[in-house]
């Protein structure tokens, strides 16, 4: 069982609110990721980080932002939530140093976001 935690598990919020989804891992992994997953659909990478002070945009365009001030913490922020942001957000981490092609992703349980 991987030690990666996401809070909250569920969030229902009104349009225009600012929200932050939390993700923490206690494994000392350098690399962390945020994926977005709609019901019955594949995972799409929206942000990733190779380590502290490193953040990159993923394949899927997202209005969210991320920060990586500490190794263990990789929060995702939406400045102004909209109904189109309704989705499941999955955080993941991996232990490999620098870019690598054979590393396992460990996932958190996800945050199910509903924007009304």
């Amino acid at each position: 069982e991987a030690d990666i935690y996401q809070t909250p598990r569920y969030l229902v919020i009104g349009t225009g609110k600012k929200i932050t989804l939390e993700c923490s891992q206690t494994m000392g992994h350098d690399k962390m990721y945020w994926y977005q997953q709609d019901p019955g659909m594949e995972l799409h990478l929206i942000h990733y980080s190779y380590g502290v002070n490193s953040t990159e945009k993923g394949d899927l365009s997202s209005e969210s932002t991320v920060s990586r001030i500490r190794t263990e913490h990789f929060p995702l922020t939406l400045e102004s939530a909209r109904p189109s942001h309704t989705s499941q957000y999955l955080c993941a981490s991996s232990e490999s140093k620098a870019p690598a092609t054979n590393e396992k992703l460990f996932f958190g349980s996800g945050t199910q976001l509903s924007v009304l």
Partner: protein
Amino acid sequence: GESVGLHLPTLSVQEGDNSIINCAYSNSASDYFIWYKQESGKGPQFIIDIRSNMDKRQGQRVTVLLNKTVKHLSLQIAATQPGDSAVYFCAENISPSGTYKYIFGTGTRLKVLA
């Protein structure tokens, strides 16, 4: 809560039978592949991986087969159990040049019938 999964292909198998879940990947340059299992309300869990220099890898009750000629990956589960009911995703690493990127397939829902 339960994902709706209306668009997911579904495989139904009897408990005790073997299951085969298939995945077509997109990039002939992909050199690393992973199968993940996602149970309702949880994040994906690693099952087994395989590198492109192999065509078969076995784990506990699971086997992954890789056919690079047709860009096809399969996951075989022996003696399927009720606890195997979940959505299964394959993922390919598409950037052998070094920049980390994975593409995930759409997933297959496995239903184990008692």
